[in-house]
């Protein structure tokens, strides 16, 4: 167990340290002065200088970098320049939307993928397989933010089943919130589910060609029993890789869809913060997103070992 885990853990730490440096550097070279953005273009030079001093932006970069990291280690994220509220508060609000949305989309996407992927693989080269794969190809091609627009037009505007956008807040009731998240989740899950379905199908078909499947059939297991007992677990390995990538992507890559639905999630928070040159918010949120990606990958690696006993012997 030790070498593999230790190695992975060191990589994880190194990635995070590297990410923090990259993010900080990017924010340094980002054109635009936070003070200027806050005060507006007609601010006097002296008031800009005063605000810069107040925000602590006049100190050397190295000092500010270590301040930031030091604060992070103590759980102190600092205050937003633009809104004057603690960054942790902003992040918390965004997470309350992004995390449930990501989970909901993931559930939808995996359900779609497994049902379609397995059904298509079981009916390999039959009409239903070809049709489903054509549909999934179409699903991959649709831009998710456009699909979001179409969903709003039809289900929110025409049928009025769901709100066209916005988020009520969890204190307004669980179902109301879920209701507001369903359309964005569908928009996100359609594309990801289509990709995952294709991977599931080709992975299952790949495993069906393995020698041990022939062994299972020679034992007298039926085609169906072979699928469930021998093929599925082996076929899940590439599927889980993609699932991990997709989950990481859902946490951060939903900026555009959030934008369509006016959801103040993580993505929108970063986008707004970049525009406001609210560098401290950007730094913290992007680092957090990078951490989530790395941790997801870490979890995927551990899942591999659970599924595939060969890995335990060599790598873990």
């Amino acid at each position, binding site marked *: 167990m*030790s*070498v593999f885990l*230790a190695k992975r853990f060191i990589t994880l730490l190194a990635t995070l340290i590297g990410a923090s440096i990259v993010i900080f550097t990017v924010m340094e070279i980002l054109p635009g002065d936070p003070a200027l953005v806050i005060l507006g273009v007609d601010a006097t030079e002296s008031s800009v200088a005063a605000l810069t001093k107040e925000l602590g932006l006049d100190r050397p970069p190295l000092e500010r970098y270590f301040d930031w990291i030091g604060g992070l280690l103590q759980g102190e994220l600092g205050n937003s320049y633009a809104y004057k509220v603690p960054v942790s508060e902003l992040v918390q609000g965004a997470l309350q939307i992004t995390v449930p949305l990501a989970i909901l989309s993931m559930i939808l996407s995996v359900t779609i993928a497994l049902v379609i992927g397995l059904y298509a693989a079981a009916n390999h080269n039959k009409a239903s397989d070809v049709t489903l794969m054509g549909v999934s190809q179409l699903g991959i091609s649709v831009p998710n933010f456009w699909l979001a627009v179409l969903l709003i037009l039809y289900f929110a505007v025409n049928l009025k089943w769901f709100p066209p956008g916005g988020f009520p807040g969890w204190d307004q009731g669980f179902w109301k919130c879920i209701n507001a998240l369903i359309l964005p989740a569908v928009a996100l899950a359609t594309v990801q589910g289509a990709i995952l379905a294709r991977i599931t199908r080709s992975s299952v078909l790949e495993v069906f060609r393995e020698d041990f499947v022939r062994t299972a059939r020679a034992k007298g297991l039926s085609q169906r029993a072979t699928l469930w007992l021998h093929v599925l677990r082996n076929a899940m390995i590439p599927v889980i890789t993609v699932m991990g990538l997709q989950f990481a992507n859902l946490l951060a890559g939903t900026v555009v869809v959030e934008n369509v639905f006016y959801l103040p999630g993580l993505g929108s928070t970063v986008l707004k913060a970049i525009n406001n040159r609210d560098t401290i918010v950007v730094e913290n949120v992007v680092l957090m997103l990078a951490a989530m990606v790395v941790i997801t990958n870490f979890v995927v690696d551990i899942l591999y070992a659970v599924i595939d006993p060969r890995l335990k012997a*060599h790598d873990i």
Partner: protein
Amino acid sequence: MSKTVLKVTDLVRHYPLPKESLFAKPRYVYALNGVSFEIKEGKSFGIVGESGCGKSTLARNVMALEPTDSGSVIIQGEEVVCKSFSELRPLRQHFQMVFQDPYGSLDPHHTVGRIVAEPLAALGKISTEEKNNRVKEVLQSVGLKSTDTEKYPHEFSGGQRQRIAIARALITRPSLIVADEPVSALDVSVQAQVLNLLKDLQDSFGVTYMFISHDLAVVEYLCDEVAVMYLGSIVEKGRTEDLFKSPAHPYTKVLLDAVPKPASGRKRERIRLKGTVTGQTEQRIGCSFQDRCPMAQDRCRRETPSLKKVGPEHLAACHFSQELMKEATA
């Protein structure tokens, strides 16, 4: 006495294994543990052993295709160990290789002409005309048509592909050809064609073969001398006739006995080996064959047997060679 084409002395190659825990001692695969032999000009030298005994590692080290830990390989009087790739290039015309898999050893995107001409790279610049002539000449000598140069490997059968591979090895007129299981991927009927070809080529060009195989019958047919390898060491070496008639190492005897004979009246008496190859990840005290040997005794666990002379040009690494050979002649 004809001259020596290849002289291998004390060749050692250990591969490091990935660490199992951070603080554990590094572990190695002991692939070659001091192998020595020499091959005379125009002779065939066979190397026999089961999978994982270090045969292929030996071939790669003789061909200078991977770094060698220690020892020396002298081909036509030139040391090849510890030479840089560019220093080796002009030497490579003297030693060429034929691989096991006739499908994997030919680049599917190159024409036969290009594949066969490849080793000429070692010679530096030569004219296109000379190149084409040599390709045609060498294709004819392995029984292919000189018009085949424009075709691609997938247009040929396994046996023909192996002929192409042999043509590639021959084109620089090398003095040594290292052949790593060149016929084991072929059908019996095609295998015989390739074996005969190898013999004919030796007769007409006087090439020297280092021939690696797990098939004793093939080695007996083709080779003047044989070395038997077990776990990275040569355990017996000698003229083919001597070694097959009176094996001086129990492993050789077991190998010979284990080959099924295609003849009526089955059931033969033989010693059967217990267990499987113990693996090459540990270096042990005593004889490497002690766990599986039917005649192992205490001495075998204490004392590592060295290669000793048991007859003219016949060496074996066993404490009990004499007894074994007596048994065989009796």
